């Protein structure tokens, strides 16, 4: 019996000997952006309208008649009945994967979806109908690293945990490479302000100064990273490719004004003569520091905000934070009148020298821009405590997009902006 005890202990001890040795592992946990894949067939089938849902990640805005169209980045477009700006009411949500830009003409919504341009009948926002799909109309926004998985329609944040042995070195807490997203920069980080397209109807149809889609006459103008692309929308339901004009790298926005197109790029502002809407002709380029730069125009002057990127994404390297006032009396030779320091200017809008500048997390500023050389001395109002990305001005109604949601102000009084409503963004 005694010997049995010892034998038992001996066996146990020998087993334990085999499991001697410290173990060590590092669990590296980080949040990163991972691609969302979809097949081309899925992409086409996914376009549909569903009941209204909450705003979560607002993008570009377009107003048409009584409706407000708000892009939900890479997801689709909210349709909001804004006939009473005091009580805007969500009507429906149009699911469009990989959508960033939009424009509306009559009852037709033009929207991008990955590389496709869609024409959608929105006469009944709850029951939309795809009228036309032009494939490969727009360059892909994301680097398609693994085509076998489908196409990348979005990136979503995920928490990743990697297990690394303690003996192995771990380099970097990294993110996958994401193609520089010019399309998104325009609004997600940028700004919008009012431009009035020469609509075919008498209804108001406005997009933002940072929009990459613009309507003028019978043409839909789109800009991508390097080119201006025209689509003939004389028959709104059946857009056709019309022209492709190479401009240069870093194109961000398009802003039609009277017979000209003002195209913002990271390095400057290109001015096109658009007397013949089917053949815009480059007149001049106003160069500035490499920065993110929305542009608006009123009369003979262009207002350009240049900013650094405060998000840490380094999208606007070597940028400065200024408001440039540029004379375009001679469209072939734009000249700087004065540059005003700002905190982090994003979108802007101007209406009869009533100038509004979104200052990102520093709020919204309102200037009297009657005296172009003394704008800084005529700060009328500075609203703080919220994020201000972009604005659209329409008949004394200011629609501002911020991280918190969509603010609407009445700016008929020069003394004070009157808040009409706030549609709050709901976090995912």
């Amino acid at each position, binding site marked *: 019996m005694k010997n049995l005890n*010892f034998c038992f202990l001996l066996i146990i001890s*020998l087993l334990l000997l085999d499991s001697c040795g410290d173990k*060590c*592992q590092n669990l*590296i946990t*980080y949040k990163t952006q991972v691609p969302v894949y979809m097949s081309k067939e899925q992409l086409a089938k996914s376009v549909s309208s569903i009941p209204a849902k909450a705003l979560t990640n607002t993008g570009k805005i377009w107003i048409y008649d009584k409706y407000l169209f708000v892009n939900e980045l890479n997801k689709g477009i909210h349709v909001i009945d804004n006939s009473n700006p005091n009580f805007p009411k969500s009507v429906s949500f149009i699911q469009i994967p990989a959508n960033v830009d939009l424009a509306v003409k009559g009852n037709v919504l033009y929207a991008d979806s990955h590389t496709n341009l869609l024409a959608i009948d929105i006469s009944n926002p709850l029951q939309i109908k795809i009228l036309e799909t032009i494939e490969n109309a727009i360059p892909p926004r994301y680097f398609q690293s693994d085509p076998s998985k489908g196409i990348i329609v979005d990136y979503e944040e995920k928490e990743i945990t990697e297990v690394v042995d*303690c003996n192995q070195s771990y380099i970097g*807490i990294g993110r996958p490479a994401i193609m520089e997203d010019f399309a998104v920069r325009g609004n997600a980080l940028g700004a919008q302000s009012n431009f009035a397209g020469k609509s075919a109807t008498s209804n108001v149809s406005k997009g933002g100064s940072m929009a990459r889609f613009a309507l003028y006459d019978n043409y839909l103008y789109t800009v991508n990273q390097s080119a201006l692309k025209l689509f003939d929308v004389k028959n709104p339901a059946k857009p056709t490719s019309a022209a492709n004009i190479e401009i240069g790298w870093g194109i961000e926005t398009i802003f039609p004004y009277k017979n000209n197109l003002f195209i913002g790029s990271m390095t400057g502002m290109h001015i096109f003569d658009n007397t013949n809407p089917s053949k815009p002709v480059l007149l001049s380029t106003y160069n500035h520091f490499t920065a993110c730069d929305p542009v608006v125009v009123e009369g003979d002057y262009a207002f350009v905000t240049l900013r650094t990127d405060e998000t840490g994404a380094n999208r606007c390297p070597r940028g400065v934070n200024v408001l440039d006032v540029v004379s375009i009396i001679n469209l072939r030779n734009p000249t700087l009148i004065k540059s005003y320091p700002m905190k982090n200017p994003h979108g802007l809008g101007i209406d009869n020298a009533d100038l509004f500048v979104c200052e990102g997390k520093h709020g919204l500023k309102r200037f009297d821009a009657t005296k172009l050389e003394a704008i800084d001395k005529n700060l009328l109002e500075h609203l703080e405590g919220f994020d201000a990305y972009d604005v659209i001005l329409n008949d004394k109604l200011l629609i501002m997009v911020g991280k918190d949601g969509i603010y609407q102000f009445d700016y008929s009084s020069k003394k004070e902006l009157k808040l009409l409503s706030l549609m709050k963004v709901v976090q995912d």
Partner: protein
Amino acid sequence: MKNIIILALFNLLAFNQLLAQETKNLQKQKGFLSMNEIGVMVSNESALYGSPNAQAISFHSFNAYQAAPAFAIGLGVGMDSYPDRVLMPLTIGFSGDFLKKNITPFYRFLIGHGSVLTKKPTDNSGFPTQDIKLGGGLVVNPSIGLKVYIAEGKAFTLQLGYKFQEAFTEQSFRGGSLNRQEVTFRRLMFAIGFSF
């Protein structure tokens, strides 16, 4: 290493033969039992420290109620000093002598939780660290040994055991990244001590 252990265990068998020659039994029969020892813990290899610089020193005290020479139940507390951290295991366990002799093999089994007393700063990541959290974990410590009674209820002990002990370090970085280092010490323990 294995040969040494096998030899030690066979020596225990030899002591077993000597027990028959003992006369007066000095074993504690009942009551408070305190076993205190100092030991060294070694491992074949260490993913954390490399080898051979992986020894750790252990101090331990097991205080129990002895119901019979073959069974005592109680609590243990100790201090295990590894190269970069000191852990304090708090355990519950039982122990007992195998034989009713003055020289007798004994067993002990402890299980509990270890916590960190100190850890030397070893962050060489180069990243700005926001917060470092240290912690312990499960401790399992079975052992056998030899008791040599020298007086009524008092004995020297020689002990061979195995210690399984978990510990972790968590470093959080700006931007929400987290590095959790999980260490499982799996050590052979040699200890000498005194029980009363």
